[in-house]
């Protein structure tokens, strides 16, 4: 099945346009990744309206390129400016910035790019091996299992949200409600449409995502200082010799890549957690003379290989089960849904050529990352000098034109602005936004399977306990909630103790 899928995918993959768009995606991803405040998700959001006007595999090439490039790009500003371009690169500055201070900025960027590429390839190998097995296993799933799986995905993402689990669940619920707007698939009645024909199919996912992430981010950037200043940075060049340097740390490289892939597979865990865990593991295993935190090469290798391997891991549940590993993977799922493909076991069964094509696109993206990243380092460094006063208006226009292009609808633009305002309020209140997107994607899966489960059940909700896999997932969900409650109470106890000690 695996070989068949890849050989069938080769036909779709071997087109000059696909290769070209992989490289274009990587370059764009590295650019948005390098610019503080943007990142891979924002890059994918901006390009999504363009992508959905392409063929499915070319769209995947473009978006996966941005995902891979953007996950690495943040390291450039972390190393040069001590400002991680994305949270994914937060741990890279521990050793990347000291390396730059010692005059080894080129080496540090080269190491970051090379380890990202190798880590991404390792994550890709796991993706190609594991996802068909998972998809085959999931073929036996019926509505009760899918219901529980959708709940697991949502709870897992909410449980690792930055602030609190409850805020994550609230955001997820908002996404679930948004997904229920429009024509009900079962009764064909209209829900929450307010008699507007624009709302018959609900809000377009792109206007939700662009509003929540891009518009709110631009308003936040606008509130910042130094809109017209540009940092003074010397142009730096990386070299392919850094690939050799990376393999000097091969144990660290493989360990960190597997840590990254593992955390990628867990919905919600993501690249930030994996890079910090990989860094901690590398530091613990290192010899004292390596001096982590003072410019150790191993520190950069650990964090960057882990955060890019996470991309491969995040694609495993996304493709095999239709459960997104993170918000960027949710966008990839959304794109496939817009094209009429349903990620999950049926995708592997009915469109093996597309799955194979995606595998090949992903692996090639990591090779393209190495080539473009090393050769074009001076360009990405130069981009850090772009003034925000020029960047913000351009991004706003791209949001408008891209969202309008979906359905030639001004209504979509107003919806985008509305979601932008909601995004601003929620971000100010520290609510995570990713669960909203994931809830919107999982909403139809959850609702349809829940209602179908209750239809086929003769004992109401007991159907979720009668079936072994559904019951296991139910136990996982209960344990997840239990773990969150326990850790919240523990933190509260610690907080109380710290407060009374201070008094």
């Amino acid at each position, binding site marked *: 099945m695996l070989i068949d899928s890849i050989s069938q995918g080769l036909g779709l993959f071997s087109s000059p346009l696909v290769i070209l768009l992989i490289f274009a995606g990587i370059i764009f991803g590295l650019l948005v990744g390098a610019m503080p405040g943007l990142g891979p998700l924002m890059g994918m959001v901006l390009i999504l309206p363009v992508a959905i006007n392409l063929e499915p595999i070319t769209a995947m090439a473009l978006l996966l390129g941005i995902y891979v490039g953007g996950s690495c790009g943040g390291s450039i500003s972390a190393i040069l400016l001590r400002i991680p371009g994305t949270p994914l690169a937060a741990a890279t500055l521990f050793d990347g910035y000291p390396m730059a201070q010692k005059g080894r900025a080129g080496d540090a960027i080269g190491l970051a790019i090379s380890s990202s590429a190798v880590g991404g390839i390792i994550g890709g190998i796991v993706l190609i091996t594991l996802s068909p097995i998972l998809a085959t296993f999931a073929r036996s799933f019926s509505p009760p299992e899918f219901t529980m799986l959708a709940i697991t995905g949502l709870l897992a993402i909410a449980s690792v949200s930055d602030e609190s689990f409850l805020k994550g669940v609230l955001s997820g619920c*908002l996404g679930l409600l948004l997904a229920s707007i429009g024509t009900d698939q079962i009764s064909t*009645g209209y829900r929450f449409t307010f008699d507007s024909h624009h709302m018959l199919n609900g809000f377009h996912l792109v206007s939700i995502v662009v509003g929540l992430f891009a518009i709110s981010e631009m308003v936040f950037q606008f509130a910042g200082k130094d809109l017209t200043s540009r940092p003074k940075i010397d142009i730096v060049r990386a070299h392919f010799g850094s690939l050799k340097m990376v393999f000097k740390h091969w144990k660290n490289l493989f360990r960190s890549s597997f840590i990254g892939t593992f955390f990628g597979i867990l919905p919600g865990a993501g690249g930030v957690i994996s890079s910090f865990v990989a860094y901690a593991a590398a530091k613990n295993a290192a010899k004292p003379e390596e001096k982590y935190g003072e410019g150790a090469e191993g520190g950069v290798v650990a964090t960057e290989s882990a955060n890019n391997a996470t991309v491969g891991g995040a694609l495993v549940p996304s493709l095999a089960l239709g459960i997104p590993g993170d918000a960027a993977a949710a966008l990839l799922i959304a794109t496939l849904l817009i094209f009429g493909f349903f990620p999950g076991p049926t995708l592997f069964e009915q469109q093996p050529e597309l799955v194979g094509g995606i595998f090949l696109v992903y692996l090639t993206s990591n090779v393209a990352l190495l080539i473009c990243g090393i050769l074009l380092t001076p360009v990405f460094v130069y981009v850090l000098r772009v003034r925000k006063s020029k960047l913000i208006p351009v991004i706003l226009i791209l949001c*408008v034109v891209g969202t*309008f292009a979906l359905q030639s609808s001004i209504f979509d633009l107003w919806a985008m602005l509305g979601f932008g305002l909601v995004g601003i309020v929620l971000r100010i209140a520290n609510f995570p936004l990713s669960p909203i997107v994931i809830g919107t994607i999982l909403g139809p899966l959850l609702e349809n399977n829940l209602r179908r489960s209750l*239809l086929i059940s003769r004992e109401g909700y007991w159907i979720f306990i009668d079936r072994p896999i559904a019951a296991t997932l139910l136990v996982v969900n209960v344990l997840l909630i239990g773990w969150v409650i326990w850790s919240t109470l523990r933190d509260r106890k610690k907080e109380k103790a710290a407060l009374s000690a201070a008094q």
Partner: protein
Amino acid sequence: MKLNRYYAEWLALVFFIALVAVVFQQISTDLVDQGIASGDPFHNAAFYPRGVAILIIVIVCVRVVQLTLEIKRNTAELPFKSLHQLILPLKLVGLFSLYLYLLGVLGYHLTTMPFLFLVTYICGDRKIISNILFSTSVALLIAYLFENFLRLVLPGGVFSINIPW
């Protein structure tokens, strides 16, 4: 007045309460009128959104209790530390809303260049000539990319202005 996350969270909770109110209002009026708000879970289109809305209200109640009993308020500062600092972002939102309105009326080509110019100007970039060049070139370049390469028609407005590239 100093702004902090504590007040912001109350605002967000009010938003969720309003959302739940809309869900129940729609279920009891529009969905009932259509006859799709009753029956078994499979045929009842209100079953699922009602369930989600109830879950939201339960969590909001828990958060309200948590916020009220909080040991230490989350007074972490926001990017907008005071009401005064909200003026610039509010200007952007206002200008953007005006742009969206005029986009439908006057079309892309008559509105985008002034919008780009004004945002750049508000940001503090006061070089008039360079801003005009920047705004014009960006507006035309984006139009060219979308209309020529992707074959998409941008809003022409009442004058139906579109460039035949």
